[in-house]
């Protein structure tokens, strides 16, 4: 269980719980920007964007995960991340991500005046970009 200046961090995807561990702090992408959570954070409920979740001071082997879309609940000593998709950077299929990026650009061009299609294209685009940048970041 988390001690006083530790966070209990859980990453849950629709298919399974990826990890449930303790960490000193968590860095995560919200829809509107990155958030760093330290123990004692005010209760927060936010939408998750596309990008990397990274843990500091945890015992996990992989401390950085690429996530896309979902929700995060922050309580003073607990962070629960519900991600629609999560992969370890090493497991990212770069070729597939490139293809997705191209596909996104195509969608973007085809969207025209349709706000809904535009939104959807942006969604795909952001996800592909986050994947690629995550795969290219060297393992620290």
């Amino acid at each position, binding site marked *: 269980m988390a001690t006083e200046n530790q966070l209990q961090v859980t990453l849950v995807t*629709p298919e399974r719980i990826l990890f449930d561990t303790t960490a000193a702090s968590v860095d995560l992408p919200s829809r509107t920007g990155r958030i760093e959570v330290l123990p004692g954070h005010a209760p927060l*409920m936010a939408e998750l964007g596309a990008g990397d979740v990274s843990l500091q001071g945890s015992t996990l082997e992989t401390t950085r995960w690429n996530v896309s879309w979902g*929700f995060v609940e922050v309580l003073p000593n607990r962070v*629960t991340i519900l991600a629609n998709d999560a992969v370890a950077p090493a497991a990212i299929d770069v070729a597939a991500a490139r293809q997705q990026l191209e596909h996104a650009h195509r969608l973007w061009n085809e969207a*025209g005046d349709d706000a809904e299609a535009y939104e959807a294209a942006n969604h795909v685009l952001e996800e592909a970009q986050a994947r690629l940048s995550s795969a290219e970041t060297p393992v620290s």
Partner: protein
Amino acid sequence: MANVLDLRRRIRSVKSTRQITRAMKMVSAAKLRRAQDRALAARPYAQRIASVLASLKRRIEVLDPNTGNLRHPLFAVRPEKRILLVIISGDKGFAGAFNTNILKASHQFLALCEDKEVDIEAIGRKARDQMRRRYGVATHDVVQSENPADGSPLTHHVRRRKSRIEVVGDHPGLLEKLNHRVVRELAEEIIRRYTHAEIDACYVVYNEFKSVIQQRVVTERLLPLIEPGSHVIVGATEQTAEERQYAATVAAEAGISPFAEDTSEADEEAAHFGTSDVDYIYEQPATELLNGLLPSYVAAMLFHSLAESVAAEHAARMTAMDAATNNASEMIDSLTLYMNRVRQAAITKEIIEIVSGAAAL
């Protein structure tokens, strides 16, 4: 009277059939175990989404007090005139009454929708084939028009309804490799149809599977969302006592627990997600949070139904193949008995011929 050689051939053929059914039973048992684990692993996410949604819905009014509009179109309740029915069956046969039960429940549901237009989204080859044969596939007209912005040509597909009940959509291979991404796309498509008022309600027929002895075929309402977090069951058929007992015996032989795994502790933890008795800072306004949460919720519900249905299919196949193996063994026994009798009769006949021949000399 059949001769010994024919009987021997028949016994050999039944034996090889028994080998196949036995192998199928073993494969199904292994697949069932995996499917069960997968269904279980998918629960934490689904429950957390459901609990945060329920909590959010308690905190905010469904109607925006400033504008009087609904917070989200999925909460809109319209008179049910057009219904989308999602039928989840299996891809393959040899699973006892599994597919038949699903189709029976679907037909019962369709019989209730007397004057409503129904679109059927059939998942699993068995349901798709039967429904297509019976009701036909939805047709679309291709309409060409010009893009008003720059005059470039645009093609639209316009639905032309020929009969009251039609099959839309095709999802080959969805069950074989159950993947959340694909399920989510399907959920988003259903939501799109609902928000554009192409459908007024969405129901799912599937085989609920808590464990081998806790199964039923249910018809559940997915949309409109009235009380998130609770299942709205409009029709259910339970297993019969004999089916349950037989399934339990077979499962025990295969080393599968007939009881559902105890998840009460994990369930309780999941129920706390987003429901703490504190004032959350919501980073986004509630309406925006709902926009993200509702598709996830619908996708999780659909994924849950699919995962349970896959587990149920394997369980049904395991039981059916065990029964087939037993029947084959019985058949082999009786054929062997008959063959021995025939052989004995032939020997006796020959002896009588020899003896009477000798006596005539």
